[in-house]
């Protein structure tokens, strides 16, 4: 049976691997019981919802200025979260900003994931290049915190997409490390030897047989990483290195509200709370996923 599946790329039958199916299903059952993680999932769904439907549910145009309605506090009629220094509706800006946060979070993490996972697979599977790749990874990890991202933005120049690239590159090393460690653990397993013995090509072994068995920690880390990417993007925008005004990016909104901290503190407070809730949600979900996917806790 395996020779057939080994030759044909199997796209039509996703239920081919009953064992891994039940593993994921079991993890999902465990995750469902985890209330904080479910809260995190709700936050994620709300974020996705608001970023898709921002154009419909936002009461105003996020860029529309109304100089007669400046600095209106929270609870003003027509402006539930108040207005900013240009009389723009904060709720509308927040909703449109959620789209930016989600897109930036997802795209930078995807960038880091694709390159990081590939590098990790190669480093773990081919001992010849392992040392070289891991030394490069070490160098990338030698930059503390967001410093590497900041250095890359310094080279590319400030701007939203440059921040995505910078944060994406900054995410590569950790993904690579996690995957490499997993590959090293998995590659001596019998089923890998078996696929080698029946003559599978390397890329097929790597992507079809090794990768699926390395995914659990990658998923956990990716979830947490989206949280930190959203936070780093906001940070860089706050510093003036990311999204430039008048883009309703949450960090940039906080930077704009900074000058009015005394008279209209809600301008800076509201987007900060939004960042906190979203990041908190992703972290809760990531924690829950880790508990759900941790093989040490398997109840069999």
């Amino acid at each position: 049976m395996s020779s057939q599946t080994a030759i044909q790329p199997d796209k039509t039958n996703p239920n081919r691997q009953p064992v891994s199916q039940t593993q994921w299903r079991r993890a999902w059952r465990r995750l469902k019981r985890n209330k904080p993680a479910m809260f995190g999932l709700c936050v994620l769904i709300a974020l996705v919802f608001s970023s898709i439907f921002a154009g419909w549910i936002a009461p105003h145009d996020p860029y529309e200025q109304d100089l007669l309605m400046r600095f209106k506090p929270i609870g003003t009629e027509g402006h539930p979260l108040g207005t900013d220094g240009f009389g723009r509706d904060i709720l509308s800006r927040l909703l449109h900003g959620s789209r930016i946060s989600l897109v930036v979070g997802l795209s930078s993490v995807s960038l880091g994931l694709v390159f990081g996972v590939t590098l990790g697979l190669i480093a773990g599977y081919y001992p010849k290049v392992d040392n070289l790749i891991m030394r490069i990874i070490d160098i990338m990890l030698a930059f503390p915190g967001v410093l590497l991202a900041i250095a890359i933005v310094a080279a590319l120049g400030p701007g939203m997409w440059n921040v995505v690239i910078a944060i994406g590159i900054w995410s590569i090393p950790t993904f690579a490390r996690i995957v490499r460690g997993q590959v090293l653990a998995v590659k001596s397993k019998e089923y890998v030897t078996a696929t080698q013995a029946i003559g599978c090509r390397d890329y097929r072994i790597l992507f079809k047989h090794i990768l699926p068995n390395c995914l659990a920690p990658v998923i956990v880390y990716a979830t947490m990483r989206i949280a930190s990417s959203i936070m780093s993007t906001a940070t860089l925008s706050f510093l003036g290195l990311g999204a430039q005004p008048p883009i309703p990016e949450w960090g940039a909104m906080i930077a704009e509200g900074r000058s009015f901290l005394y008279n209209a503190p809600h301008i800076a407070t509201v987007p900060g709370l939004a960042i906190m809730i979203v990041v908190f949600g992703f972290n809760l979900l990531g924690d829950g996923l880790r508990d759900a996917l941790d093989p040490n806790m398997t109840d069999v």
Partner: protein
Amino acid sequence: MLMYIQRRLLMLVPVLLGISIVVFMVMHLAPGDPAEILAGPTATASDIAALRLKLGLDDPVYVQYWRFLSNALRGDLGDSLQSGETVTTMLGTRFPNTLALATASMIVAAVVGLTAGVISAIKKGSFFDSLSMIGALLGISLPSFWLGLMFMLVFAVQLRWLPVAGYNGQWWTITGVKQLALPAVTLGIGTAALIARITRSSVLEVLKEDYVRTARAKGLSQFKAIGKHVLRNALIPVTTVMGINFGALLGGTVVTESVFAINGVGRMMVRAITSRDFPVVQGCVLLVASTFVLINLLVDIIYAVLDPRIRYD
């Protein structure tokens, strides 16, 4: 042990070289001709050509890198394009402020994180435990720049307990301590959260050990058993995390310094990026990354000394 330290010191060389290559590339991968950026918008084509020659930008990249490296090793990181000051002098006056901020944050983080972590572990499942663990997750989820603004709003603007911003560079004076208080708490809270989580799980792990049960069985009070037997062993991984995070705090100072207008390396770097003052950016990144690597090395060595069970082969 000596062999281990020697080997680690040797491994430092390629990493530092790598950092210098990355930093060098920051300038050279930048879109546009560096000479054009340096010469400014009003420069003529011949000005730019003269500058290219002066800066040696027409040389092959490896020649340029070698020049950058050998100058850097001699402590010459070039001059600021904005002020004309040497980058080394600029770093020299600002680095102590950054170091003071990072150290103060680490003290805050260690005190808060260790206390919360140990109590949570001992009282596992209690109200305090859930509260501090939710608090720890919130602490990791808070954007530090926003938290800084909120602290500023509450403690400086509304309550007027502490100064709004600025730092006089003298942490040993009362004014200096007051000025550092808000930035240190702002920067330290995320690390405190991390330390609390790791301390909790590490203490819980050790509490399960047989020797702790023995200590309790031979009549040692809970307090003594924890102080003498649990903490000693539980704190080993915590020390590493603290060490590594001290380096990470150095990276975090970039943000906190900008919020609180502290004249440190981080704020200088952000300003230099927006004004495209490349020598300054290079100097800042080089200094912070090298310090981070050195601190990590030190942490690893301390780790090996603290825990003789660990063998690095």
